[in-house]
Each structure stands twice: as structure tokens, then as C-alpha cells.
């Protein structure tokens, strides 16, 4: 006997979910595999492990990691300010957070580059005072990725922060905890799952970011050449299978990251909810 769900329409909505997923996600993914499978395994291995490509992964992953770590810290502070304090222009700032989602990435890249070259007004300051070049270095790539990733963290942490009952903090205070302990032992554990998910989302997004980075990177091979740019150059040569091979590796990396995220999040939230 089939067990009836209390919520009606499971069959239909599940069907819709599956078809949408296949059209939007699975079919493009399959085509990746199909194109890649035109290569033999050794060819595939050669294509994705060339030194140039390896350095591309390294540049992409290291800059994305640094940018996402910075975003995790800064995003949390931003979310904290937006939830806990009232100040004029709060709504405006709250809206601005989403701008990186809406802005075409190329526009972001071009304007960031313009500002951070040794002649741009931000870049000039750093160059004259500290001798630091921002645009056309890995630092520049990181700056672009921070810009792209920040909304992910803020928008993940914000709702959780809003839901944390102020009574917990009051209770901690009454029981003698100072504000530092309260944050570490009471608030932060609650936030951690959201923070991890925000961090991973930003990280996954940054690894694949192309539009803004190509302008600020300088694209020097072995120095500031990101993996997505290598995919573009394979496409330019109309070498679909090489392009999809590199894409497949990137996809695998993203998949691993997202899985680790899911596991981490599950274990953290179990601990927080006292189920462990």
C-alpha cells in the first residue's frame, strides 16, 4: 500500500523539478562529458595536467580561497552591522550589497582595473606609499573576487543573525559571560553553518569567475592566468574537447568543495542543535 504524503501534489511537483533540473543543469553537464569523451583517457590526463593548466588551477583556487576567507570575515561584520544596529542609510547599504549580483561582471572588472592601476586613484595611493601593485597581479584578482563574492556571505548570514533571539545573549550576560565569551560561545556557533555555506558559495563562484577577472588579471601565463581563461583560449582554437576537459576538472573541484561544505554544515548544525 502506498503511503500518502500529507502535502498533496508530490508526484507532479517532483516531475517538474526533475524536468527543470535536467533541462537546465543535467543536459549541459552531459554535453560536457560527451565532448570530453572524444579524448582518450591519456589525452585527457595530458590536457588537464599540463604545467600551464596546473598553474591556472593554482591561481584560480588560491585567489578564490583568500578572497572567500576575507569575505567570510568582512561579510559577517557587514551582516552584523545591518542586523544589529540602526543608522541612517541602512536600507540603502542593505540594497547596495546585492549590486555585485546585478552588475555585469565585465563592468565591475573594467572599473576595478581603472581604479587600481598604478595611475588609478586607489592604485596610485598603494603604489606610491607602499610600492604595492594591485591591478595585473594576483592581488588584483583577489580584489575582483572579493567584490564578486561578498553578497553570498552577507545574504547567508543575515537571516540567521536576524533569527537569533536576543534572550540568549541576555541569559549569557546574566550568567556572567563577558561580551567576548557570549559571542564565541553563544552567537558564533549559531552563525557557523550559515557562514560556512556563504563561504563555500562565494568560493565556488569565485573559482569559475571569468568576466571581471580577465580585465584586472593581466593574464600573464604562469603568473596571473586563471583556469577559465585557459578554457576560453581552447575554445578560441575551436578545441572543444580540451576546453571541456579543463571545465570538467573545474567542475569536479567545485563539486568536492560543495560536498565538503554540505558535510561540514551538517556536522556543525547537528552539534549546535545538540544532536551529536
Amino acid at each position: 500500500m502506498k503511503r500518502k504524503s500529507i502535502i498533496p501534489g508530490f508526484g507532479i511537483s517532483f516531475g517538474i523539478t526533475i524536468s527543470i533540473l535536467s533541462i537546465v543543469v543535467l543536459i549541459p553537464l552531459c554535453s560536457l562529458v560527451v565532448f570530453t569523451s572524444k579524448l582518450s583517457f591519456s589525452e585527457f590526463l595530458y590536457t588537464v595536467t599540463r604545467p600551464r593548466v596546473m598553474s591556472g588551477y593554482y591561481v584560480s583556487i588560491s585567489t578564490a580561497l583568500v578572497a572567500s576567507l576575507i569575505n567570510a570575515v568582512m561579510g559577517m561584520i557587514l551582516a552584523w552591522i545591518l542586523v544589529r544596529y540602526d543608522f541612517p542609510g541602512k536600507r540603502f547599504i542593505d540594497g547596495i550589497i546585492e549590486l555585485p549580483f546585478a552588475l555585469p561582471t565585465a563592468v565591475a572588472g573594467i572599473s576595478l582595473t581603472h581604479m587600481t592601476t598604478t595611475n588609478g586613484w586607489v592604485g596610485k595611493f598603494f603604489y606610491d606609499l607602499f610600492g604595492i601593485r594591485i591591478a595585473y597581479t594576483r592581488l588584483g584578482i583577489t580584489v575582483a573576487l572579493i567584490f564578486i563574492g561578498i553578497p553570498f556571505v552577507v545574504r547567508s548570514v543575515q537571516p540567521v543573525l536576524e533569527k537569533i533571539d536576543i534572550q540568549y545573549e541576555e541569559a549569557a550576560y546574566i550568567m556572567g559571560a563577558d561580551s567576548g565569551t557570549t559571542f564565541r560561545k553563544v552567537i558564533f556557533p549559531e552563525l557557523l553553518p550559515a557562514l560556512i555555506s556563504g563561504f563555500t558559495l562565494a568560493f565556488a563562484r569565485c573559482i569559475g569567475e571569468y568576466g571581471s577577472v580577465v580585465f584586472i588579471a593581466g593574464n600573464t601565463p604562469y603568473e596571473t592566468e586563471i583556469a577559465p581563461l585557459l578554457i576560453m583560449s581552447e575554445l578560441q582554437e575551436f578545441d572543444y574537447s580540451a576546453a571541456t576537459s579543463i571545465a570538467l576538472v573545474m567542475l569536479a573541484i567545485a563539486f568536492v568543495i560543495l560536498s565538503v561544505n554540505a558535510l561540514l554544515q551538517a556536522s556543525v548544525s547537528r552539534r549546535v542543535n545538540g544532536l551529536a
Partner: protein
Amino acid sequence: MKKRLLSVLLTGALAVSSLTACGTAAVSASGASGTSNAEGTEEKPVIELTNVSYDPTRELYAAYNEVFEAYYEENFGQRVEVTQSHGGSGKQALEVANGLEADVVTLALEGDVQVVSDAGLIDAGFTSEFDLDSSPYTSTIVFLVRSGNPKGIYDWSDLIREDVGVITPNPKTSGGAMWNYLAAWYFFEQQGQSEEEILDSIRKLYGNVVVLDSGARGATTSFVENKQGDVLLAWENEAFLSLKEYPGEYEIVVPSVSILCQPTVAVVDEVAEKHGTTDVATEYLRYLYSNEAQDIEAQNFYRPSNTEIYNNYVFTADSNTITEIPEDGRWINDNITLTDINHFGGWQEARAKHFADGAYFDQIYEQ
């Protein structure tokens, strides 16, 4: 309950599909009446023509389309409306190959048109379909330097000096930038260097590249807006546009040798046949060779292929530096030795030898 919902959905789906069917029927009916009208009376429908081109031809085709539309209506009694599409040449080629419905393509190099042909959309032999390898206008690679030429850059040999910063796009992501690389190669070859020495010079040149942009427009932005580097390797027409836009800020230096950049035009046979636009499309490209069109091309700083018109734009240069756009419109400095792609054995060979994975261009970056 569930069944009723399903039947409602099904009816809905049926209704929608029959409606769309009616819609298509209505459209095709009106299309048919349009054609029958065209046979009988003077009310002809406007023919729409799509020209997929690359980035720096925007101004050229905006001017040319107007002239062509007037010409075609006058001589063939038929109104034509040309729609333009611009973008990186390689990307545009991919899009047409993947199904963007272009009646004609006017791309930066033969290799890109070849891609569309390889997709089965253009019949083989497209380079002999029109005169002069199907390139009605050409260009070349020149240097754009900052006003007063502070680094004293006069020829390719100056580009490998240690104090010079070069801006040029990556030939692996920008098809047009292959011309830059090949022009440099030809210069060092003319110096009598062996292949190994040439490779070494090229390595030095690209070692001086400050920003290896992914496309030509990006490179111009790096040089002009972000003030990077001392010299931009640019298509002649792009260099003149910068001169026009920022008078007094830049100078063009014409090197002793360079390469003849031949943008290739072709009718996309499959699409044009389907649209019934083969005749218009062919005429559209053929008319690019007319005196009127050649003048427009020259005014947009492309070198016209018609020698008579070409000569109208040539000036006798006493130096290889151009500091402003000449008032009499004579901008072509003829004092330059141009090679062409045939010197490199055609595109296929050039690509395999220089730009394929692991070929020369990749090798110059290996440590």
C-alpha cells in the same frame, strides 16, 4: 482529486499548443500573402539581412549599410534592412557556426570564416568567391605610442628593449592578435635571424608585455584608459580611431615591415538559401568593392583594395610617425613592406606551427 488536476493540466496544455499552432499558421499565411503581393504590385516586403562582423567595424558598416540600402532600392527596387552584430571575431564565428542566423559574415580573418565553413554553413572555396581572396578592404599592424614618443620606439627591434612595456592581446584568445605576432615574426625573419633566434626575440617581446588582454578592445582600454605600457600593437584602423578620439595624446608609428591583415567576407550559403536572401547577400558583399564603398572604407581607415582609390589616400611621408589625422584625408603611409598570410603557408599551417597547444607561442612562456 489528482485525476481532475491532471485533466485540467492536459486541457490547458492542449489549448496552448493548438493556440500556438493557429499562431504559426496565421503567420505563415501572412508571409505567403506578402510574397504574392510582391509578385503582383509595388508593395514588396522589406528584406532583412544579418551581417555578423567583428568589433572595430561598427562605424564602417553603419556608414556602408546606409549607402547599400539606398543603392539596392534604387537599382533593384527592393528595400533592404541590414542588421549588424559585432563582437570578438572568434566568438562571432563560433556563434554563427552554432546557429546564429547570419546571411553574411565579415570577420577579422579567414580562419574564423573557415570555422563557419567547417560547420557546413559556407560552401568550400569562399575565398575565391569575391575578388582578392574575398577581402574588399585590408589593414595592417602599426604601433600606437604616447605623445612625443618618450621611449623612442620606431621599429620592432625597439620592442625587445628592456625598458619598453608592450600592450598586445593574447593571440590564443583573440584571433586578430595573431596578426601582431606574425608581423613581429616577419620582422625578425627579415633581419636574417634563424628560427631559434626569432623565437628568442619573440620571447623577449612577449616578456615585455605588461598586460596580455583577452581581446583587442581590452588591450586598447589598458593602453588608453589605464595608461599601461609604452606601446600598443594595434590594427591601423583602431590606431587611427584612438588618434581621432584623443587628439594630441598619441602618435602612430609605422614600422618598417608589417603584415597585410585581410578580413574575410562570405555569404553564409545555408542560411541565405533558407532565408531566400542569397542574391541580396551576394550583392551586399560585391558592392563592398564599388568605388563608393571603397571610399567609405578608406574614410574609416581601412586600406581599400581598389588601387585608384587607395592612391587617393596615400601621402608621401617624410617620417614614419603620424601625430594627427591629416586634414586632406590622405592617411595611408605607403612606406612599409607588407607580408601576408601566404608567407606563413596559409592559416592552417600558421595555426599549427605557432598557435596550437604546445606550439611556438606556448613555448615562449615555458621556463
